[in-house]
Structure formats: C-alpha cells, structure tokens
C-alpha cells in the first residue's frame, strides 16, 4: 500500500511539473480548494456551494447557453492578450480596445442602413479595424518613441472609456432620455432566430417544445463560433505562417530578429494591431449579439482585464483560451448563483479565480509542495 502511494505521488509530480495541462488542472483544483476554505470560514458548506454552481451551469440548456454567451468575449480578450504575449508584448489595453470595438460597432449598427447579410460583417469589420488601430497606436508609440506598451495601453484604456461616455451624451448617438446609446438596427442583430422567436408562430412552437424554449430564452448568438474560429486562426497564424514566425522571433529575441533582417518595429505594430482587433471583436460581438447598444459606464467593465487571467490560465495557447474562457465564463455565471440560493457571497468566485491565477503564476510553489511530499515519501 505504501509503495503504491509513493508511486502515486511520483506520478502526480510528473503530471504537475512536466505537462502544462496537468499543471493547469492542479492549479484550478487548488484554486477551488482555497475558495472552499473561505466559504467554510464564513460558515457555508463549500460542497453545497460548489454543487449550486455546478447545477447553475449545467442543469438547464439555458444555463449552458448563458455560460457560453458569458465566455465569448473573454475568449477573445484572452486571445488578444495571449497573442501579444507570444510576440513579446504585454497588452494591458484589451479593455480599451474592447470599448472601442463596442462603440464603433454600435455606431455602425445604428447609423448605417444595410441589408441583413451585409450589415453584420460591415459592423464587425469596422469595429475590428478601429480597435486594431487603437491597439496599433500603442505599438506605434513603442516603435517610434520607446514608450512601454503597458503604460500607453493603460492610458488608452481611460481615453476609450471616457470617449464612450462622451459619445453617449452626444446628440444623435444618445437615446433621448436614457444614459445609453440608440440600439443597433435589426439588420445588425446577430441573435439567433431573434425575429422568429418573437413572432406568433415562433412563440406557439416554442410553447410546445420546452427544451428549445428554454435554450432560446437566452441571447444565444453566433459569437461563440466566431471566437472559436478566431482561436484556430490565431493558432494558425502564430505557428504556421511566415508572419507568425516573424512575430514570434521578435517576441522571443528582438535582437536576433533584427540581425536576421526582420523589421522589429513594424512587427510590433502589426502585433498590437492584431491584438487590438481581437479585443475589439469581443466588444463588437457583445454589441451585435447581446447588448445591442453601449451604456454609460462609471468604471472599466473588466472584459479586458479578465482576459489577462484567461491568457494566463491558457498559458498563452490560442486553443487553451477557448477552454480557459469557458471556465472563466462558467465560474462567473454559475458563481453568481450562490448568493440568491444560500446567501453566500458570490465574491468567493473572484477569490477562486484569483487563486487559480496565483497558483499558475508561481509554478515553483506547486513544485516545491510536491517535491516535499516526494522526498518524505522516499524516506519512509
């Protein structure tokens, strides 16, 4: 029995230290343990709480749908940060790029009058371009004046935030009497079966099919598919194209890249443009798929900042961002439910997320804990 326990520890050690996925899973597990400790300390049963969260995510089709809708922008902002990170840049500006994407999408969605199949692509592309330029600006500042991208993107975040608020109080853009913008035209709306589910026939059919009724209750839209597609595209660009080779070379060692004839400055701008575009896409999809407008915001909404955590949990892997984004979306959506159901503070979920990031950020800690165990096991 002792021997098998020792072997188990050894296997666990290898699992946690040599495979990044194993390491990530253990970090997530430890994060949940920390959350449980806090719940228990506050007098709540952690098993009950996690049970509620799990049921709150999976027990109904609409819950799953909500989770996915929640996860979509996080996957994209995560991708934005992961992409920049792979090319040696730290994009703190996903938040601002998201805002620019959302604002431009709203403007294009409201002011333009285009046929159904053209309107959505036009809205999305203009939002992505605008946010790309917003991100590229930080790259330009770095290339031209040596301004560190962390500084410039943080500044650009605030500019974006107040720009949105400024527009909301601008005549023509503001919905009269409200602290929001006008809603986008129906042709720019990407919610699945939006008109049908409000029509007479649709309502009738849904009444007889409770599964679909529940599912379509949610703002389900094509955004998730686009996000997944983007993850694949980012993976392809980074790993399979000459552009990706260039960007990675600059990211890993800009001196060697420069020596090899690669234009470092140009590639930094390109990288920030793509990163900005991805975060802007998150904002655009949120507008065309879920909110249909932008509202006055007092503080950052946090999609960009949560993206940093997503990218970290994904270890900057493009495909990992899909899973990390889903995890994040699920925790946020499901976690909110412990408050109404057992009066437990839903902030615990933020502790869980914070702990996961914490454990991931210090891989040494897990290694030390496991080595200790291994050594002790060895002596016995």
């Amino acid at each position, binding site marked *: 029995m002792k021997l098998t326990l020792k072997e188990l520890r050894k296997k666990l050690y290898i699992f946690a230290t040599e495979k990044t996925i194993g390491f990530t899973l253990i970090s997530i597990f430890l994060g949940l343990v920390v959350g449980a400790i806090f719940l228990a300390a506050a007098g709540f049963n952690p098993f009950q709480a996690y049970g509620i969260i799990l049921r709150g995510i999976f027990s109904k089709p609409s819950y799953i749908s909500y989770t996915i809708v929640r996860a979509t922008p996080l996957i994209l902002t995560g991708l934005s940060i992961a992409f920049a990170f792979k090319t040696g840049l730290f994009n703190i500006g996903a938040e601002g790029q998201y805002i620019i994407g959302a604002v431009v999408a709203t403007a294009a969605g409201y002011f333009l009058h285009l046929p159904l199949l053209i309107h959505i692509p036009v809205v999305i592309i203009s939002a992505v371009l605008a946010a790309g330029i917003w991100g590229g600006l930080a790259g330009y500042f770095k290339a031209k004046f040596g301004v560190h991208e962390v500084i410039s993107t943080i500044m650009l975040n605030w500019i974006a935030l107040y720009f949105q608020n400024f527009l909301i109080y601008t005549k023509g853009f503001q919905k009269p009497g409200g602290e929001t913008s006008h809603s986008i035209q129906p042709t720019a709306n990407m919610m699945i079966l939006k008109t049908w589910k409000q029509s007479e026939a649709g309502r009738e059919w849904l009444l007889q099919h409770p599964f679909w009724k529940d599912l379509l209750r949610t703002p389900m839209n094509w955004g998730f598919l686009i996000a997944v597609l983007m993850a694949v595209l980012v993976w392809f660009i980074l790993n399979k194209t*000459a*552009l990706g080779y260039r960007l990675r070379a600059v990211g*890993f060692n800009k001196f060697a890249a*420069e*020596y090899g*004839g690669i234009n470092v400055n140009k590639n930094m701008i390109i990288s920030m443009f793509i990163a900005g575009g991805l975060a802007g896409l998150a904002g655009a999809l949120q507008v065309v798929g879920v909110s249909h407008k932008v509202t006055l915001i007092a503080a950052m909404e946090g999609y960009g900042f949560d993206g940093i955590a997503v990218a970290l949990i994904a270890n900057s892997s493009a495909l990992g961002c899909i899973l990390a984004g889903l995890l994040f979306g699920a925790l946020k959506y499901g976690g909110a439910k412990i408050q109404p159901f057992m009066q437990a503070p839903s902030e615990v979920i933020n502790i869980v997320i914070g702990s996961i990031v914490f454990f991931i950020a210090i891989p040494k800690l897990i290694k030390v804990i496991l080595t200790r165990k291994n050594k002790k096991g060895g002596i016995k």
Partner: protein
Amino acid sequence: MGYEEVTQSLGKVVEMKNITKKFGDFVANDSVNLDVFKGKVHALLGENGAGKSTLMNILYGLYSPTSGEILINGKKVDITNPNVAIEHGIGMVHQHFMLVKPFTVAQNIILGREPTSKMSVLNMKKALKDVKEISDRYGLYVDPNAKIEDISVGMQQRVEILKALYRGAEILILDEPTAVLTPQEIVELIQIIKNLTKEGKSIILISHKLKEIIEAADFCLIIRRGKHIDTVVVSETDEEGLASKMVGREVSFSVAKEEKEAGDEIFSIEGLVVKDNRDIIAVDKLNLSVKKGEILGLAGIDGNGQTELLEAITGLRKVESGKIKINGEDITNSTPFQVISKKISHIPEDRQKRGLVLDFDISENTILENYYKNPFAKRGVLQYDNIKVYAKELIDKFDVRPKEETKMARNLSGGNQQKVIIAREVSNDPDLLIAAQPTRGLDVGAIEFVHKSLIEQRDNNKAVFLISFELDEIMNVSDRIAVIYEGKIVGIVDAKDAEVEKLGLMMAGGGNE
C-alpha cells in the same frame, strides 16, 4: 612517476567515487572519480557539455547524484544543498558572478554572514577589518569600499573568491574563471591561485583552456561525454597530450591552409565614421577592403571600435559618414534585410543575443533569414516538411549535436549553438562572410571546426572578414592582418610576415604610422 605514486603521500580532502548522474535517459556523468588533495590544484578538463559543471554542481549540492558517494576529509557526506557544501568548507565561484551590483565590495563579501554587535546591529567596522585581513593574507587586493558596478570584471572575480574564503572555504571550485578575463588578469589570477594553495587551500579548476591548466594545475581529470577518461600529473604532459585526451583524437593546433592567390576587391570601406552608444566616435575615418578568396583578419584589443564597425556594416548601427560598398554597390546605412540580400552573412559576436532565437528549435533557427522564401514558405504559409529536411541536412553537414532538429537552441552547448549559426550563415552562400569572435568560449575541437569552415569559404573564392581578440587565431587563419586601434586601421600586414611583437605593439597604439 605516474599519478598514483605522486599522490600517494598527499592528504585527500575530497573523494568523489563512481559518481553517476542521469537526467532522464541522458547520462551526464558516468561513474566519474575525482580526488582533490590538500594544497593542490586539480583541473577538470573537458569539452563543452562533457559534464564538468554537472560534476561540480553535485559537489556543491546543486544536484544530487544518481549513484556514487562523496567523502570530505575521509568522512562520507550527503551534500543536499549549497549550505551543506559551505559547512563542509566547499566554496564555488560561478562563471557568472552572483554579486549585488549597487553594494560595495565589503557588503557583498559579508552578505549572509554579517558580523553584528548586540541587538543585531550590523558591525561594519568589524566587517571591513575582516575583509582586509583575508584580502591581505591571500594577496587578493580589493578596495572594500568600491561599488561592484564600478570595478572591473577581474576585480569582481576577486570579490567572489573572497566571499568564498570569508565563509571559511577550504576547497574552492572555480568554474571557467578565465573566460571573462583579459590576458593580464589571467596572469594575476594564476598568481592568486598559487597564493591560495600555499596557504593550504585546495582548488578545483574547471577549464577547457589547456595553456592555463598547464600553468596553474598540479593534476588534471579529463572527462569526455560524461565518462571518466584519465587523471594525469600535469607536469608530465603537454598541451597536445591533454587535447587529444579531451577530444579523443589528435588535434592540430596549427591550421592547415593552402597558398592561394586572392582575387579582385569585393568589399570596401572608405572614411567610415560611426558613433557608439554614448555618442562618442568609435570608428574614425576607417578604410578597409577585402578581396575575393582571402581572409582579412582584424586584430585589436576589445573596445577599439570593432563592435561598432561590425554593426555599421551589417545595418545594425547608423553610419555618420563614409561609404561601405559590396560588389561596387553602396550599402551605407542599409537595413539588415538589405545587407543580407546583398549576400553578406554575419556570424555575430554574441551568439545568444544576436545569433539565435534561443526559444526556437534548431530547424526554426536555420531559416532565420530565409523563412519567407520558397521552399520554406509558400504564399506566407510555412512548409514545415521542407524546413525539417533542410535542417536535417545542415545538422548532418555541420555535425550539430544532438542530431535532433526539434531541440531548442537554448539546450545546445555553446559549440553546437555556434555550429548552427555557422551552418545557417555559410549555407546562405555569401560573397562576404563576416565572423566576429567566432570561437569565443569554444573548446579545441569546435575551434578547429570553425577555422576549417572559414578557410573552406575562402577556398571557394569567397571573401572572409574575421574579427577577433585572440591574436593566435588571427595569425593562424588570416591571409592579411589589419590592426585596429581607437577606431582607425593603424597597419595592414601580410600574415606570412606577421610577428607577434610587432602586431602587439600596433594593437597598443604604437603603429607604423
């Protein structure tokens, strides 16, 4: 007299018996034996990646051996971490110094063992006294109040040695101590080593420089690919003997080179002026030309404008005035990309900073300048199959080890990293190959290889421009030798007529002019 007889009467302070260390399947040390004697210098000789550092890291407690045992002063010990090693009187001076730069010399030496008065108040007076005492005793003169960032590399090394002595080291491990030193500092270091042994300290000297081992060591353990090859008495052997044991075959120190008539001038520099990072003129109206089928060596002491000259040619630094021409075309102030497209290849001075993307694997590194070209990329998509075939070809041709194109450049030994760079640059089939310090930090076998590659290039009627601080290398390999001093060429001589004394004088500024 053999090793056995000579060492019979000496007291053993360290015995490492049948040390084996495996990393996964890789055997870094394969039952290696090492005895260190009181008051003697024991050298540890081997090529890059032979397992010298692994063995010493085991002794210093950084690794634990897979099997084998260690005895200190006859007692079996279990060195689990460096603190245990220090307790047993073992001190190590690493190749890369571990000093706190804004601290003073004395502060660094006492760090972690600070003398305190009551109430744990730092007693700096006693610290200074202690430092002075040990530095006087071993002839290791330093200014205890100087800041580390203000003193030379040689001085920093002394501080490291003092640090180990302050902690009561009786056995001192010096890891490639001369790699960073100037010739003058090397002479001083050897004197320090002699002073230390006179005081009864034992030294383990890790090196792949044969000359120093001959000068400084009493005994020498030779390891090759992790295996224990031999232990010899240094006074009974010579450089050739050590070299052949280290590499496993006869090594020639002179470079085999046939007479060759140089062709037309292909590359020229006229009145070049370049500034350094501090905005001071580093290259001052320099003139130079290289012909087809010749190796032009640039001799000079470090810091006389070589780096700036090189960077100006390759497009990495701005040219203030003057002209650089290849094949009659003006390439002054071109981008690196344009320079490469004019068939100039460049083996950079700093292979890890400039030459390689360490987090790319070998195959990705072989296409650094050509990644976007057919057959490596088609319509912007990388063709990994073709890249792999190409990388394998280069690995075979240039004998890069290990023979795995998916190996990260970071995990290669210095010599093999250099081989990857040379393979890439030579395969670009350049009209002009610029080699800057191409053998820095390499062992004998790898140096031989690099020199052969340069000469092969010349024999193919290409131009080669070699920049090196090693005068031996310049004299062995070049056809013509130019000497640079304070950013100017102070003389050009035919390699056949070159004399060390004369070149040395020119390098120090006493040129023909």
